[in-house]
């Protein structure tokens, strides 16, 4: 059950800018020197694997990146429409499938616009050149004499009678991309760079079937998995409950499930099977009330992340501070429980999944079950919002295992809410220990940061393991090995954003990856950045207080990057920082980070009222995400990230007893509600000519930090353990 190692995301030094990144001339954006710089296109070079023209006047684009509410399909359609010179409504985005889509790895890391966007842009530019060459040949003129208006070929501004639609012949785009050609500069954009309505929303506001959960295939039956009653449990006997004759029970080791003609029948049968089954349960979990002890006492691998030693500077420290910050395990808590459909036809299996990485899922299913990957096809269909590696891939394997019992018949598996909350991978609990020294002038001269966490890089295939839940339950299966954490950099895994972006002469950052994984962990939106930025930015306020400095001025004094300075100044201006009111129980705080140390910039200011509860009233954010394709899409992502981060920071904590997760529904895992969410104002700081960065994860850390600092401002007490609840405030007051 091993896979060939998949390529990890490249370290920051190896990152290549997208085409034309630094161009600000009015002409075309300078193309990159070689196709290799456009990684997705280099890996999938045939133009027809990116777009297809129909004689009816539409363009279908193919991407390996999936839509899960982040609006990426709309942005990709804008990029294609722009480069082809066609109207946006002519563009359709094809569903992602291992059968026909370019393999662009996983949709994660806020990289879709860089990866898929740059590839589509170049593929469309080259397709346009191919079409213009064909037109020029027919018209006996030079391609440079021709222009395009919504697909119509013009010569000297007049119609030629030719169009993309008349020129498109089968096979025309079945050619490998050549050396990169110039693409349009943002200054000449008319479709990209402007807010466009999301192409998926009309279906969603009218209730038209769109989600995988709505898909009904001919002859489909319904499966339910009966999960063990504990994270570590062995099935002793099924107890042979009496079931209706049209229900199939599937057992393989400790994997137990049912297949029935309707979902209601499957659910009833699953309850009977669960009641009759006998298990041996092992108490395998740590004390959820003492996560610090769990994190600091578990065996761990210690890896240096960053070491910039300057002992002379460090020796100038006159004040040394140390503090520890923690976060609990966090759940994805998607609105929909995971769902999948699978069908076996002889040796071949077809899967429908809302996985964020259909290619990795295909390979993991094949490796896990000893199949030839060529016989496994995975089609993507939309699920509810995904915020990282949730249960989608695991549900797909469940469906495959249950469908094996009824060959030729599609079987749909839907997880229960309790299974979604109790069995999907979680974002790991973390501890960051920070220590810093200030010189007599109040400047930071030395900083050390140690981060303890389970790994975040636990998606299917990572570390050469299929990493699908049910594999551990099958006869002969073995427990899932602890999640890897990616290359030890300030951009990856638990140490994402553990390297402060401030000018600090003496700096050391160390990762402590836990080598046991009692609770399964994997990627959750922003990975380690959520805690690291909360810790660094809380600590910055604590240091500013030592130095007797205003929090905003203290940050600016340690920054040299003008884009960083700009977002902090803009957020402070938006919030009226300088004139903020001073009232009892009301506090203001700031938080800042450049995501991964190399992507989008975000600064946040929070207003927190600490009365009977911790109430975040308002948030002001300024972001710089480089060149923007869909401004409203960016604002929507930043607003949503800010509200989700507020919920994580003030409410959320996965609870468990010694055997199982106990926060298995919305009453035991409360998230922020309509009456509780803050008002959010977002300003995009223009960054003409700068490369596109993602926007979906940049708010997570800065918002949590701003809230923490505002709470300290409101109460006079520093709370370093998330979530920032009333109980934590009382505990912190008692300790101080």
């Amino acid at each position, binding site marked *: 059950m091993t896979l060939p190692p998949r390529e990890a995301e490249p370290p920051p030094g190896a990152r290549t800018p997208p085409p034309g990144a630094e161009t600000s001339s009015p002409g075309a954006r300078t193309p990159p020197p070689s196709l290799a710089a456009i990684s997705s296109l280099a890996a999938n070079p045939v133009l027809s694997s990116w777009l297809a023209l129909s004689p009816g006047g539409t363009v279908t684009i193919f991407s390996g990146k999936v839509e899960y*509410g982040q609006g990426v399909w709309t942005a990709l359609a804008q990029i294609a429409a722009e480069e082809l010179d066609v109207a946006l409504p002519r563009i359709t985005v094809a569903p992602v499938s291992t059968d026909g889509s370019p393999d662009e790895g996983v949709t994660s890391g806020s990289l879709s616009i860089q990866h898929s966007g740059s590839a589509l842009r170049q593929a469309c530019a080259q397709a346009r050149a191919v079409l213009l060459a064909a037109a020029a040949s027919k018209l006996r003129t030079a391609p440079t004499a021709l222009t395009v208006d919504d697909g119509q070929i013009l010569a000297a501004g007049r119609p030629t009678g030719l169009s993309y639609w008349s020129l498109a012949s089968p096979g025309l785009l079945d050619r490998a991309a050549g050396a990169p050609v110039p693409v349009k500069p943002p200054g000449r954009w008319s479709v990209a760079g402007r807010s466009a309505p999301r192409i998926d929303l009309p279906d*969603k*506001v*009218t209730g038209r079937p769109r989600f995988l959960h709505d898909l009904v295939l001919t002859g489909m039956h319904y499966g339910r998995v009966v999960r063990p009653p504990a994270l570590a449990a062995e099935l002793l006997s099924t107890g042979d409950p009496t079931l209706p004759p049209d229900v199939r029970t599937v057992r393989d080791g400790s994997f137990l499930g049912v297949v029935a003609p309707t979902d209601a029948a499957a659910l009833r049968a699953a309850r009977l099977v669960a009641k009759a089954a006998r298990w041996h349960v092992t108490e395998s979990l740590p004390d959820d009330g003492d996560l610090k002890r769990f994190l600091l006492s578990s065996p761990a691998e210690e890896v240096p992340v960053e070491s910039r030693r300057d002992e002379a500077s460090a020796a100038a420290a006159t004040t040394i501070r140390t503090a520890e910050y923690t976060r609990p395990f966090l759940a994805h808590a998607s609105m*929909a*429980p995971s769902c999948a459909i699978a069908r076996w036809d002889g040796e071949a299996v077809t899967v429908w999944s809302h996985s964020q990485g259909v290619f990795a899922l295909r390979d993991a299913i094949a490796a896990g079950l000893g199949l030839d990957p060529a016989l496994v096809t995975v089609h993507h269909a939309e*699920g509810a*919002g995904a915020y990282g590696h949730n249960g989608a891939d695991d549900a797909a394997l469940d469906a495959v295992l249950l469908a094996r019992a009824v060959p030729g018949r599609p079987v749909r598996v839907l997880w229960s809410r309790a299974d979604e909350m109790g069995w999907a991978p979680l974002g790991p609990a973390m501890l960051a220990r920070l220590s810093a020294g200030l010189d007599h002038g109040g400047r930071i001269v030395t900083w050390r940061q140690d981060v303890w966490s389970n790994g975040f890089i636990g998606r299917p295939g990572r570390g050469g393991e299929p990493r699908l839940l049910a594999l551990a339950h099958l006869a002969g299966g073995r427990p899932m090995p602890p999640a890897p954490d990616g290359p030890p950099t300030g951009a990856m895994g638990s140490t994402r954003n553990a390297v402060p972006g401030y000018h600090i002469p003496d700096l050391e950052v160390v990762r402590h990856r836990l080598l046991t994984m009692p609770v399964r962990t994997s990627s959750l939106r922003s990975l380690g950045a959520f805690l690291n930025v909360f810790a660094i930015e809380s600590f910055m306020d604590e240091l500013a207080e030592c130095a007797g400095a205003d929090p905003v001025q203290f940050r600016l004094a340690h920054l040299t990057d003008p884009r960083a300075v700009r977002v902090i100044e803009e957020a402070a201006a938006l919030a009226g920082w300088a004139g903020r009111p001073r009232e009892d129980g009301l506090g203001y705080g700031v938080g800042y980070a450049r995501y991964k140390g190399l992507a989008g910039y975000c600064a946040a200011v929070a207003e927190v009222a600490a009365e009977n509860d911790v109430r975040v009233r308002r948030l002001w954010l300024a972001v710089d995400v480089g060149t923007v394709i869909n401004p409203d899409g960016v604002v929507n992502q930043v607003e949503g990230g800010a509200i989700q981060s507020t919920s994580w920071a003030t409410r959320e904590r996965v609870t468990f007893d010694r055997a199982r997760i106990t926060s298995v529904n919305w009453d035991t895992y409360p998230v922020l509600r309509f*009456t509780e969410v803050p008002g959010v104002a977002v300003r995009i700081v223009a960054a003409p000519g700068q490369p596109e960065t993602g926007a979906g994860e940049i708010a997570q850390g800065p918002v949590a930090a701003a809230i923490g600092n505002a709470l300290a401002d409101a109460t006079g007490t520093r709370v370093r353990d998330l979530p920032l609840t009333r109980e934590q405030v009382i505990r912190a007051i008692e300790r101080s």
Partner: protein
Amino acid sequence: MEQQELHVTVNGEAHTLTADPDSPLLDVLRAGLGLAGPRFGCGLGLCGACMVIIDGRARTSCDYPAWAAEGTTVTTVEGLRDGGRLHPVQQAFLDEQAAQCGYCTSGVIVAAAALLAANPAPAEQEVREALDGNLCRCGVHGRIVAAVLKAAARRPSGQAAR
């Protein structure tokens, strides 16, 4: 399972269905009538993704037994539009781009439509309170509240409650 006849008017059309009286109304709507708008989220009436309007009130349908729906009038998100025209709340959701993943959207729209039918000019706090039984995990709350207020402002006064 015991099956019974169920008489229910859904989106203006009278249906006589055969259903397990103890099954949730959500199953009747999705599996029985093929309506995709009401969505399964939790099964305990805690998230609002399955909301429909039953005799004028927005209710969760995942924990509403089919037998209790006997003789009722049910409106799902599919039934809100007036011929080819979107309900003002649906239109405002598009205008404000008030969604991300869209899984909670139909339940939220239904709850908002029921609110505006009962209270055509709600204050912002009333909108928030009316939607407090609906969870949104993507964090689109601000846009949703803005959309509902916009729909209320646009709604011709005296429009019949649906």
